């Protein structure tokens, strides 16, 4: 492929992915409102367009037309910059996530990922932690005590859960033997969902899931905005489109986190029980099918996000910290050690290659670890009141 063709294809991919995410985010806001309405026995927005499908457009229009306010004595530059700082990394992260099987064309294979970086996962860790700057700066620059508390909470929360998130994902990289996300997907796509990383690394997925909820500031970890306590936390003073930017950032983060969970643990774009992904004929249709599969998996996790949000109450700040440092981090460390040893034993000593048998053996290790976790470290100890209740 010539340099020019590469450039053109990359630009096309950027535009397509950007558009898809923005439209997806808009529909996601509607989906969230309709799904929560369904859970709460009400209808939700269904007036604008068929089934309320144009509601996001109406909201967007409203936000553009609303008055932009600037609090007195706010730090003007940072106040304006903060929404952008939180918005950009949320979109950047998606660049390395493969969203479909490579497309065969007469000009060569086109990988369906904006940038197939050799350091894909490290890039994600680096970029996704940048988003918190936007939130913290928003809290600080608003010159509002509630915003400040929200911003501080966000910073502490992000640091605490980043570590557990990274640790649990290292196990995935051990299996893939590579940090490129295309290779992670390729390793899982063996024709059976048993080799999806969620089987050999079930507990790792659980840790990753919880950490991803915390990273995206969604309930039960939405302490930075905690409406009952901090009004709206870091974005209390924001209005109109700047406020909207924070929302778009939150929802883009959700999309990215869901895509990441799909890629790392659920085989990415792999269509279960098939190995015909990108062999001729009909490669275009097959690629489209794999993109749809990816979309369906991401959609499932987005639904999970919404489902959890409208079911659970919110953690308290110290409980969140205790969960992050006293439970998630040691758990991730121990888990990583055990899994690394098991992989070494299976691979080096027994000489197994990664297949369904390998995955099931690791899955058995997970079950063995889960028993003490859930029956010895029970609910009452993982999360308890600030003053332990006697006999309860």
């Amino acid at each position, binding site marked *: 492929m010539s340099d020019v063709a590469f450039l053109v294809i990359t630009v096309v991919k950027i535009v397509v992915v950007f558009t898809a995410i923005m439209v997806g985010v808009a529909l996601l806001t509607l989906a969230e409102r309709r799904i929560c309405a369904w859970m709460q026995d009400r209808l939700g927005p269904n007036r604008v367009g068929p089934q309320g499908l144009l509601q996001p457009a109406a909201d967007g229009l409203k936000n553009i037309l609303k008055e932009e306010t600037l609090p007195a004595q706010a730090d003007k530059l940072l106040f304006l910059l903060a929404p952008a700082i939180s918005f950009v990394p949320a979109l950047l992260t998606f660049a390395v996530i493969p969203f479909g099987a490579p497309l065969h064309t007469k000009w060569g294979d086109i990988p369906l990922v904006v940038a197939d970086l050799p350091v894909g996962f490290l890039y994600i860790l680096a970029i996704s932690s940048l988003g918190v700057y936007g939130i913290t700066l928003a809290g600080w620059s608003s010159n509002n005590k509630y915003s400040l508390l929200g911003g501080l909470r966000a910073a502490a929360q992000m640091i605490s859960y980043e570590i557990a998130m990274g640790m649990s994902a290292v196990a995935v990289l051990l299996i893939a033997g590579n940090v490129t996300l295309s290779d992670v997907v390729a390793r899982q796509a063996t024709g059976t969902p048993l080799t999806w990383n969620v089987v050999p690394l079930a507990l790792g997925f659980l840790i990753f899931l919880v950490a991803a909820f915390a990273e995206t500031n969604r309930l039960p970890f939405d302490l930075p905005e905690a409406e009952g306590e901090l009004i709206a936390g870091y974005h209390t003073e924001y209005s109109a489109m700047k406020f909207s930017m924070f929302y778009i950032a939150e929802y883009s983060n959700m999309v990215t986190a869901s895509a990441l969970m799909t890629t790392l643990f659920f085989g990415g774009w792999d269509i279960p029980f098939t190995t015909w992904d990108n062999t001729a004929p009909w490669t275009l249709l097959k690629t489209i099918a794999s993109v749809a599969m990816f979309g369906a998996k991401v959609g499932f996790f987005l639904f999970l996000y919404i489902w959890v949000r409208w079911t659970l109450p*919110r*953690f*308290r700040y110290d*409980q969140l910290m205790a969960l992050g440092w006293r439970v998630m981090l040691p758990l991730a460390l121990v888990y990583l050690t055990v899994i690394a040893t098991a992989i070494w034993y299976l691979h080096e000593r027994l000489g197994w290659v990664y297949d369904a048998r390998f995955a099931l053996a690791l899955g058995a290790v997970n079950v063995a670890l889960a028993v003490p976790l859930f029956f010895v470290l029970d*609910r009452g100890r993982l999360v308890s009141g*600030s003053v332990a209740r006697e006999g309860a």
Partner: protein
Amino acid sequence: MSKRTVELELATPGLDARGQPARVPLVARGLEPGNEPDLGGEHLLINLGPQHPATHGVLRLVVELDGEMVVRVIPHVGYLHSGFEKLGEYRHYNQIIPLTDRTDYLSPMANNVGLALAAEQLMGIEITPRCQVLRVIACEMSRIISHMVWLGTTSIDLGAFTPFLWAFQERERIYDLQEMWTGARLTTSVTRVGGLMADVPDAFVPGLRHFTNTFPNTLAEIDRVLTRNAVWAGRTQGIGVMTKAEAITYSLSGPMLRASGVPYDVRKDKPYLGYETYDFEVPIGEHGDVYDRYLLRLEECHQSNRILRQALDRLPDGPINVDDPRVILPSKSRAMSDMEAMIFHFKQVMEGVKAPVGEAYVGIENPKGELGNYLVSDGTAKPVRWRIRPPSFINLSALPKMAEGHLLSDLIAINASVDIVMGEVDR
């Protein structure tokens, strides 16, 4: 940037050195350069309210925070002061009843009953059996809607949005019944001295029976979502503990008192409206924390439902008003056709119902605690003094004690657990 902190000179929490209620200055005092007071550390003074999503109205809490830990809370009340008690001194007894709607506006019917009972005690009136049962129904319906609002708002304060709408749906169903009975959903004014504003319509009894049959399903759903939820338990257990002795010292009443383990319920201990003949239990808490208050209110809803069923079963026929033309307004048609009725109508509207010289105090078990109505009469148709014992105001007085040393998030949970209504706190 210079440090801007505010000095608070308080002998006891909430009181200044002279024992007067402290007024925390909004602007820092003595801010000449070099003379800036320092609290020693970086205490943050924040204003929770009067406009804040979790203060349940216009309560203002001045909170001193050390990090996120609450060092001191000073509640400021009075933003919704309406002078109801003074207004009452210029009104006939029946005209006071609409004022009671607006005190604790989450349980208007129970407030109506409380005032009517006090006025009737003052005048020595015995109400009819049907009226008694209907008033019990009014009280228990109020208890259910008040607890439903409490449950919903508390779960929202703690981040759980969905139970809020489930609870509010039940409340709407009771509001429909209240509307059917009185024509108003919120400002019911259902009682009159010596009886009721109106008898219940035909569809009311089957409607309420349907409600009592289906309401436990919603309670069970809420129970399933919250009671054994680790996050909910973690946020509420051991928070804002009041011991038995403290609860009595702070003169708490209602669910706040019983959650601390004191078995005092006006319906059992000083029965009115024939509550002694109903079969119901009074739940008692063990730990006196927010979680116990939650469990207790949930159980009270079950018990109220039980009372409602019994009341429906025994609802006797007969008049709702006492047979005394000096107290009860004759019907419009009789006032227009019967000379004597017209005179009584005229005298009641122009002069009101006269009460003998004396005083009366009646306490009833309102959803939020013991609601007392104290009336003093000088023999005219208007009281010379009307005093309300507002349960949520007195319960609120324990908030600073309960919240100290907890986190800001806990303060929200504790404040929610008190179940305040600012209309009643400020009156």
